[in-house]
């Protein structure tokens, strides 16, 4: 598979603060890659470096085969970018916004723009400053989709959107998949949406990439485990390192297994630490819970 984004040891400092450290990852053509992480993890800084809106302190990034620091109009006309903090020309109507953007993009598709306009329920004659936040985000997405970008980058696209608008927004993004070549990179707090959408997930914490793997493999290796019949207080030392957030309430112990390899193995590990424990209940974890258990672990380490 061809890499649409490929970074090597990408880093950015702001004064003494390291916003992003030693970031190496790749996003393949035809995938939806979600960058997740707590506030301040470095998601926006990463995205800005990829799009040449910020210069890396060290390291490098290739976007559609071009070094990020050399991205010019020709490359940027194949990349769409929508950010929650995007500034739009507020005095323009939507018709004026589209007319303004159109000449910059050789691949601009009028029919597609009109279809999206109807789908998003956007009024052509209204000034952007008179639109709701949801409408503005849809207008921004429309102006980025209309030229059928090969790479669409979305920075916190869902934040502050009501569920209906979020839904329309996602449908709009998925329109891209009718093209031969498309790739989406998004950063989000909305993990429930991401679980269905993303096939690859990267988790950033404190400027470092903690993991980068497929949603499928994450779902396969994380399990919520609970068992009872563990008399005593507190937790014994030497619990397996793959057990995240172990806690006890009375005789019941609960933890998140981060390297699940079958119920038999989990049961025997439990037995080694808690002789006489009951058979555990083992349940798959939604991505949101996987993220929360990792975020709690990060906080403990910090």
């Amino acid at each position, binding site marked *: 598979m061809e890499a649409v984004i490929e970074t090597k040891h990408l880093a950015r400092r702001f004064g003494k603060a390291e916003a992003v450290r030693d970031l190496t990852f790749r996003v393949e053509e*035809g*995938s*939806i890659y979600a960058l997740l992480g707590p506030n301040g993890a470095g998601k926006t800084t990463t995205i800005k470096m990829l799009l040449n809106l910020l210069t890396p302190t060290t390291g490098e990034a290739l976007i559609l085969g071009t070094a990020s620091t050399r991205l010019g109009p020709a490359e940027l006309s194949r990349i769409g970018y929508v950010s929650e903090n995007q500034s739009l020309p507020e005095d323009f109507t939507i018709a004026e916004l589209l007319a303004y953007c159109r000449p910059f993009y050789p691949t601009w598709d009028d029919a597609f723009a009109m279809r999206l306009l109807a789908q998003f329920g956007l009024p052509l004659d209204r000034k952007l400053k008179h639109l709701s936040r949801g409408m503005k985000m849809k207008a921004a997405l429309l102006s980025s989709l209309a030229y059928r970008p090969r790479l669409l980058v979305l920075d916190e696209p869902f934040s502050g959107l009501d569920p209906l608008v979020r*839904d329309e927004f*996602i*449908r709009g993004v*998925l*329109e891209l*998949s*009718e093209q031969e070549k498309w790739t989406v990179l998004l950063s989000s707090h909305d993990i*429930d*949406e991401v*679980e*269905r*959408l*993303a*096939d690859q997930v990267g988790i950033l914490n404190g400027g470092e990439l903690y993991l980068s793997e497929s949603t*499928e493999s994450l*779902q396969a290796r994380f399990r919520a485990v*609970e068992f009872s019949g563990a008399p005593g207080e507190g937790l014994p030392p030497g619990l397996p390192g793959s057990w995240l957030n172990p806690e006890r309430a009375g005789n019941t112990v609960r933890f998140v297994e981060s390297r699940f390899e079958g119920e038999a193995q989990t049961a025997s590990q439990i037995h080694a630490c808690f002789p006489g424990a009951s058979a555990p*209940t083992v*349940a*798959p*974890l*939604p*991505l*949101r*819970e996987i993220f929360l258990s990792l975020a709690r672990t990060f906080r403990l380490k910090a």
Partner: protein
Amino acid sequence: MLPFSVELRPGLPVFEQVVYAVKKAVISGVLLPGDRFPSVRLLSQELRINPNTAHKAVAALVAEKILEVYPGVGTVIGAIPAATSRQRGELLGEEIERLVVEAKKLRLEVGDVHGAIDEHWKRLS
């Protein structure tokens, strides 16, 4: 709109859930042989799922001959023999397994579960 319903639960692979929902719709007669099956793009948009996942689900259903692809026409439900009661039972098996897992988590006895099923059965009949 999709011609069958899918209730996606977080935490389980989306691919398996879609394949399961289609099989269930076919076996229970919601989808009939020859019915048009939605395109990958529509499937992905309606369910807000990754297009690659939708593609994978369709490919798996084609491999199992539940769907048939006619170039230029589209994808339709295959001419599958009527489901045997065993196949219907197998399909129910997953639901029952979920029920048993939930019941065990709640520390219920098998009698409690039977009682609850009887009650719901009466209410719906």
